């Protein structure tokens, strides 16, 4: 039992140390309060005290008393059942779709790209994007540049969902002289081969 409780403590300790001095939202306040209750439960269990209601973290069985202590017990049960589980992150990616494409035109601050789905079945499409979405390290965005479009669906607390998307250039590095010479040499070899078969 020690290891999970240590991990639980570590995680809450981490959260305590990172907790802002003033809760930034009602959600933050509720989360802070729940963490305090869960921490109390964990400490009492480690001390062998169990909970006042006799509920163990494993069984979750409820007490039948209705004294003020019971109300506190019910609070513990409630806080135990609603306390954030350490194995579940606060928000998680529940959907991810990607397309890869090639820029076909750059005109009037608008990019047109031909996009093909990378990770699902779908047609090849054309789409327009604002030019300022892309910021190459240097030089301008030009036809022939390759791009990735990524759309992420994130599920947060309270079952909320948000969708974010991004467009980025594929980083392909820069040409070296040796690479370009290799290309020229292959082109020459191909030219000689073709012209043996052409008239």
């Amino acid at each position, binding site marked *: 039992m020690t290891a999970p409780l240590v991990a639980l403590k570590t995680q809450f300790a981490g959260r305590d140390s990172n907790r802002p001095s003033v809760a930034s939202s009602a959600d933050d306040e509720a989360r802070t309060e729940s963490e305090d209750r869960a921490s109390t439960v964990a400490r009492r269990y480690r001390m062998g005290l169990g909970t006042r209601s006799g509920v163990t973290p494993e069984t979750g069985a409820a007490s039948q008393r209705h004294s003020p202590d019971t109300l506190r017990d019910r609070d513990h049960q409630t806080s135990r059942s609603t306390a954030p589980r350490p194995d579940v992150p606060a928000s998680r990616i529940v959907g991810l779709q990607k397309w890869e494409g090639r820029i076909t035109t750059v005109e009037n601050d608008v990019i047109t790209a031909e996009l093909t789905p990378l990770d699902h079945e779908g047609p090849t499409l054309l789409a327009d994007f604002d030019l300022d979405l892309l910021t190459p390290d240097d030089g301008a965005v030009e036809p022939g540049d390759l791009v990735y479009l990524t759309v992420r669906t994130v599920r947060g607390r309270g079952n909320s969902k948000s969708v974010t998307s991004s467009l980025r250039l594929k980083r392909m590095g820069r*040409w070296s002289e040796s690479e370009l010479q290799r290309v020229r040499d292959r082109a020459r070899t191909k030219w000689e081969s*073709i012209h043996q078969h052409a008239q």
Partner: protein
Amino acid sequence: MLNDPPSTNEFEVSIFGPGKGECIVLHLGGGHWAVIDSCVDQQSRRPVALAYLENLGVNVAENVRLIVATHAHDDHFAGIGSVVEACTSAVFVCSAAATAEEFLALVELDQEAIGSLRLSAYREYSRIFEHIASRPRDGRGIKAMRYGLESRVVFEAGSAGALTRIRCLSPTDEAVTRSRKAFASAFPVAGQRRRAPSVNPNELSVALWVEAQGKSILLGADLENGPAGCGWEAVLGAFSSTDTASLIKVPHHGSPNAHHDGVWTRLVGGSPTALLAPFRGGTNPRPAPPDCLRILSLAPSSYITASPRLPSPSTALKRERAAMNSLARNVRDPWGALGHVRARSTQEEAAWRIDLDGPARHLADVVT
């Protein structure tokens, strides 16, 4: 798909086009076929020329005699590598500029930069050149490839009175020189950011004059009006024929930069039949309404493989639009369903018989 084969003495001109892409299949008579450019059916993912010919029961390995790649725009050569590989008896013709070392360097650069063949704009050319290099000469010693250059005859069969001939009207020497310079300028220097090359000059297009079954037709590819020493002005200066074309494949999807009055007055006869495929891939779909009116005034018998307007979005497109979120705007599928205009005529007939399939229609039907 229209699946009744032509009779032996019928001259057929079939043009295929989804919203982006163009392919022409010719029956020259006597069971001999030619394929000009290539596009892919978005549903079957097959080159339409192969699908059409195999559907007619044509032995493509034996009966396709010529394949022409008019220029290096991907809406004209998608799937052409598969066509070349399947049609093992065909001579392959491409613009002389596309066999220049400067162009081949861009083909190699494209593969080096992209890696993934799926995104490579020049992968078809790369595939063709490798295939050509591996093909032996035929029994007559004829090489597998010919350079497309003005005034060059790339196919000839039969004899006087029953002659079949395909002649290149372009590119001119000047156009080849200009193209080579453009290719050379597009080659990067060390330290430049790696990207796929994107140089596609239309002046290297191969326009064709085809004579078969006593008729002449003009296939305009994407040839434009200039610049000086190139394009239609140069064609008119170098070529003339005692016969005028009774059918024209309108150049460059009806775009005004490819319209030359001299073509219609000197090369094309009165009351011609005009065929074209639209282009929806750019910011200005072609043919635009003024283009349609111009073409109809010159050829009332004009047909187009599909509307230049974007089709209603499919379920798949709607799904992708929703998935792409708000970052992507104007998400569209420019290709759409495949249309087919088929024109057939015999030596005894004056006019062309037209059959339409899919979204193909009379050009007047797309003018609003």
